[in-house]
């Protein structure tokens, strides 16, 4: 976006360096001084908007970079810390993502990289007033956490999602030193959990937490310390505890924090006395603001009714670790009329999904995970009928992640007819290369229907037996597509060419085990400037040569080298 909204050229401020773009134009005085421009731009929060603004002219580029406080780097190798430090001076919040999404599925070698420490040492020098750090798929050492805890006096919010490399010792440092901590959010993280003692390191007068999520840690924490902490933190709105917290303990926590908006329970399996059962139900009933409920590990159906009193306000129900069956799931759903998002295991089967269709008319997002992804002989779980049933009852559905063992082209066509507004359609038919199980044909027409009908589609994951036709459809119709994930699909290079030539907004491409060679992937070379592309080593002819060729175009690469098996090209930010 290179438009000048005022129709005049901005003035050359005496503070800004000479503006080569303006040397030919008349230098009219700007209608407003730099300070005003900066003030106006300081209201811009969206990264996309800020990127656009920075392209207008040199003055705007500078005003933008002097006012940016939030940094988002989607690929930590796309830009070096030095360049970031030179460009921005007032950063208070950083979001950094590291390893490719493939690392979630054990497809990335152990010491691949994405270590945050180098970034942190730079931040300690340049952004000592840093307040927030959100990391995804990065390696974080205890040393890094100690640095974070001690070098940034105003530090407030730490979020670690799918990170590795640290232990509970690092968390001790955070709890001990971060006096103003409002957020400690640890998700899906497999770390060295030595003990739950870190929680007891929060000082006795510390009470500023608003978000506390330690659900993915295993060790038992000191419950008294936790209870006192929860009592002191009057602004606590998100509390997600781990499995060591029992139902009886949960009840006491709920009494201390009825204001909670998001709750992750501990283990839901315990022998409760009748009185305790009633107390727990009452405690849930006190929570009038609960919007999100998760956890529910090892839930037994007899205890689900304690939740009912808190379900009226629920908008997000995350049962993805609770192996519920269809009947108890249906009973629970009957109490949750306002649900917008449901994450569930396929143990609820098609019947459970029928209950979703009939009880949740406001549903916007559904994720069905496989309880037993390697359950290859028994093939329980959900089928195409469950998905169709949801689509019939939930016309607002726009985000789906669906793991199943069988699907048909006809079912998918029906689904998108019922729900034409999909923005995210992620279908995973779990046996690689499975055709339509009724007609034995490839699943091309299914995804063809998706891209033809769902014009707002941003993210697509395809699966099943697919020929190049699928990709021809994608290239022809998916004009808003930004992310595409492909596995075990396609017949030739043409498939990739269709996509790379046809999808103008494509930013992220994940490919594994597909027959696409260098020619295909390089055909979209000019596309790579706007695309983060990850190719898995299973592509038989995709070799490191083309990686190097791509790499030469992007001089912003950091000092580290990505391993051979991944084609990584950078984002110029």
């Amino acid at each position, binding site marked *: 976006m290179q438009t000048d909204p005022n129709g005049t050229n901005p003035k050359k401020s005496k503070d800004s360096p000479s503006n080569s773009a303006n040397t030919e134009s008349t230098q009219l005085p700007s209608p407003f001084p730099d300070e005003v421009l900066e003030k106006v731009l300081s209201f811009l929060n969206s990264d996309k908007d800020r990127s656009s603004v920075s392209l207008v002219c040199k003055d705007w580029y500078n005003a933008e970079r002097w006012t940016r406080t939030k940094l988002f780097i989607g690929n930590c190798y796309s830009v070096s810390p030095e360049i970031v430090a030179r460009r921005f001076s007032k950063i208070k919040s950083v979001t950094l993502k590291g390893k490719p999404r493939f690392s979630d599925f*054990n497809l990335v070698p152990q010491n691949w990289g994405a270590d945050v420490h180098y970034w942190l040492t730079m931040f300690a020098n340049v952004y000592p007033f840093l307040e927030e750090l959100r990391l995804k798929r990065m390696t974080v050492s205890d040393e890094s956490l100690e640095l974070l805890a001690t070098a940034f006096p105003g530090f407030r919010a730490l979020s670690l999602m799918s990170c590795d490399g640290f232990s509970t010792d690092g968390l001790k440092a955070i709890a001990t030193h971060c006096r103003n901590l409002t957020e400690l959010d640890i998700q899906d993280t*497999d770390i060295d959990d030595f003990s739950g003692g870190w929680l007891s390191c929060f000082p006795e007068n510390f009470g500023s937490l608003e978000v506390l999520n330690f659900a993915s840690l295993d060790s038992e924490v000191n419950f008294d310390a936790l209870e006192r902490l929860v009592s002191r933190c009057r602004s606590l709105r998100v509390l997600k505890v781990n499995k060591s917290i029992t139902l009886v303990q949960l009840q006491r926590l709920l009494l201390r924090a009825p204001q909670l908006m998001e709750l992750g329970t501990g283990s839901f399996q315990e022998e409760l006395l009748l009185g305790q059962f009633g107390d727990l139900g009452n405690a849930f009933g006190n929570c009038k603001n609960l919007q999100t409920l998760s956890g529910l590990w090892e839930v037994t159906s007899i205890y689900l009714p304690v939740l009912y009193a808190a379900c009226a306000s629920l908008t997000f129900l995350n049962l993805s670790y609770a192996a519920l069956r269809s009947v108890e799931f249906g009973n629970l759903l009957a109490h949750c009329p306002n649900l917008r998002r449901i994450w569930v*295991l396929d143990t609820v089967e098609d019947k459970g999904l029928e209950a979703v269709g009939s009880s949740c008319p406001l549903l916007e997002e559904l994720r069905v995970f496989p309880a037993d992804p390697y359950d290859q*002989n028994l093939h329980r779980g959900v089928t195409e009928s469950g998905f169709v049933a949801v689509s019939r009852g939930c016309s607002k559905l726009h985000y789906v992640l669906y793991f199943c063992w069988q699907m048909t082209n006809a079912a998918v066509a029906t689904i998108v007819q019922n729900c034409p507004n999909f923005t995210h359609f992620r279908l995973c038919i779990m046996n690689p*290369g499975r055709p339509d*199980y009724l007609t034995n044909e490839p699943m091309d027409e299914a995804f063809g229907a998706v891209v033809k009908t769902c014009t707002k589609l941003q993210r697509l994951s395809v699966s099943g037996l697919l020929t190049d036709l699928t990709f021809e459809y994608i290239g022809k119709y998916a004009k808003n597509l930004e992310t595409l994930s492909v596995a075990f699909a*396609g017949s030739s290079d043409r498939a990739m060419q269709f996509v790379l030539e046809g999808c103008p907004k494509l930013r992220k491409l994940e490919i*594994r085990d597909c027959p696409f060679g260098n020619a295909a992937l390089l055909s979209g070379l000019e596309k790579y400037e706007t695309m983060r592309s990850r190719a898995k080593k299973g592509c038989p002819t995709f070799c490191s040569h083309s990686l190097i060729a791509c790499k030469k175009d992007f001089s912003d690469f950091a000092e580290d080298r990505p391993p051979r098996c991944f084609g990584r090209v950078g984002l110029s930010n």
Partner: protein
Amino acid sequence: MEKGVAYDNDMNLKATELRLGLPGTDESQKECSSFVKSNKRSSEEMDSSCNEEECAPAPKALVVGWPPVRSYRKNVLQQQQKKSDSDVSGMYVKVSMDGAPYLRKIDIKVYKNYPDLLIALENMFKCSMGVYSEREGYNGSEYAPTYEDKDGDWMLVGDVPWDMFVTSCKRLRIMKGSEAKGLGCQ
């Protein structure tokens, strides 16, 4: 790339195939081996959930990183499954048959109702158990299915509602019809 999956052949044989599994479940296990690799993390899972006797002729090898379920989630669910397998009675139970040299093990949660279970047992042990009746039990049949419940008592299979049976059954014993006669009288 050749997607050499012989689905047509499978479909024709499926109807005549004798398997221990839910009627109507699909079976399409013969993947093209060019993209099948072994998954070193799966061995525990395979032990607990794949009973060699019931597997389809070609046990599937697994593909690395597929299906794309986060390893954190997979670990949690695997742990839960292991716990529930060992805690809850009525999942994998031993089945003995009078006169047979060794026992078998089946997962009774796989079956939806008594007829499913009985057919499976009949196939497994090549015996006939006939039809259950409330009055006569399995009288007249060569064999009768019995089970040990949570209290340690030996009960006739079929008396209680299916769901109750699944949660209370600890082991099965296929008794000779002549011995089972006594059980049939209520």
